[in-house]
């Protein structure tokens, strides 16, 4: 877990960002001036981020319940302990949002002030490439595991590339025309570097994702089991914000939007933005539109630090 040092924390509760399992978290803190974390920190929040590191054979047995019922609650409690705050605002990005939803649903006593999910899939009816083969069981997760029993990064990379097969080519074509612009070239290099810098997906969590979330569509069918216990998103009662990107081809809007109906909070809202998957957190538009709106949601549900205990 990372803590982003700030001399100007003015808002409580602290924010805990839960990052995805399949890529590296530095995308949320890319460069000064283009950083999701920096923006929130400058808005007065005390920002923490759970980074899952690079899974090895030690992590291959990690299941969804390990993340939702053990690691995230442990991180929440640690943030409370470090800051003295009674609660935490949980922000989940992509698959991290899914884990955050599960964590909040599995333990309604988790001290959360609010929950925000960004580009988080819940409906796996059409999860993109190879969905049918995975659903039918023609393609088994076991068959693509590496020697550490995790899904290797190159398989994930190919999977994401196939979702929009010509996108990379189009990006390069667009870049040729702007080669004279150092800022654009640098930004392209940073983003491309991150987009091809995946980490292994722990095998057991991947198997559960395919079996429960894709095959059963357990979140939509309300049949999710964690540690053998039924977990329903309707158990979530904290204020909830669901951030959805309309041009997201990795987590398509129809996969992310149902979360709003599934979550049981009386105070819940959706933020539908015209952006892509990464564009929600990185880039000019993210800094002008997305992050200020997320920050505003959090600010409305926070308190000035002096008044917090």
């Amino acid at each position, binding site marked *: *877990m*990372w*803590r*982003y*040092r*700030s001399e100007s*924390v003015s808002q*409580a509760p602290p924010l805990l960002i839960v990052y995805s399992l399949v890529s*590296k*978290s*530095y995308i949320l*803190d890319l*460069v*000064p001036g283009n*950083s999701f*974390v920096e923006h929130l*920190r400058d808005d007065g929040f*005390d920002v923490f981020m759970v*980074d899952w*590191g*690079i899974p090895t054979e*030690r*992590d291959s*047995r*990690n299941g969804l319940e*390990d993340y939702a019922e*053990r*690691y995230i*609650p*442990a*991180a929440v*409690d*640690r943030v*409370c302990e*470090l*800051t*003295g705050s*009674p609660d935490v605002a949980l922000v989940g990005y992509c698959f991290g949002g899914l884990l955050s939803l599960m964590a909040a649903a599995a333990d309604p*006593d988790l001290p959360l002030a609010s929950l925000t999910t960004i580009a988080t899939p819940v409906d796996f009816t059409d999860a993109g*490439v190879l969905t*049918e*083969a995975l659903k039918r069981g*023609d*393609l088994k997760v076991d*068959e*693509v595991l590496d020697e*550490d*029993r995790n899904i290797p990064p190159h398989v994930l990379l190919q999977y994401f590339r*196939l979702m*929009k*097969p*010509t996108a990379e*080519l*189009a990006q390069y*074509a667009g870049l*040729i025309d702007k080669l004279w612009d150092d800022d654009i070239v640098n930004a392209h290099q940073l983003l491309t570097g991150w987009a091809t*810098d995946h*980490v292994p997906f722990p095998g057991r969590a991947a198997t559960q994702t395919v079996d429960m979330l894709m095959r059963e569509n357990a979140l939509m069918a309300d049949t999710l089991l964690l540690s053998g216990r039924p977990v329903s998103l309707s158990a979530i009662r904290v204020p909830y914000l669901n951030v959805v990107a309309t041009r997201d081809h990795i987590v398509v809007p129809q996969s992310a939007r149902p979360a709003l109906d599934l979550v049981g909070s009386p105070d819940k809202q959706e933020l539908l933005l015209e952006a892509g998957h990464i564009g929600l957190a990185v880039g000019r538009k993210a800094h002008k539109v997305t992050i200020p709106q997320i920050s505003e949601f959090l600010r409305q549900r926070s308190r000035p630090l002096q008044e*917090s*205990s």
Partner: protein
Amino acid sequence: MGDPLWLRAFSAVEGALGPRVEEFVHGPKFSTAVVIVQKVQSGVSGVVERRTRRVWHLVNLPAGSDVRKLRNQIGDLDHEVRLLRGTVESEARKRSREARRAQQGEAASEAGKAPAATAKSGGKGSGSDRGNGLANSGRRDGAGAPRSRAQRRSNPQRDQGDHGVE
């Protein structure tokens, strides 16, 4: 100034072909092809693995798959230990959470009586224990969350101490 001619031509071709390629990739034929390739690949690597293992065992040496098996067993054991530790920690967490709540409840009820108490004590202690935890700022924390050594390497701005992350 608009896009150059070549880029407009490329965009037109990409715009026309892109959706078709996508449709094919998302379709059943492509899935079937991937499944076949995957099965052939794992079949071939299985055969190679079995044969090479036999060769190494002939000269009484462990094969890569033996080492892998051992690593995986250690990984499983490590997971079991973490699971046990997690169970113990989660009980402790629940207890401390309840204690914190009780403490807050007490503090809230004390606050109800505060004016009288403050008048007597001269306001001593008010807000003195309202730490915002900044003394701990910048620590990398255990919290049961996994390692992040790689991130330290991959994000140079952290090394510059820009955000004060260790």
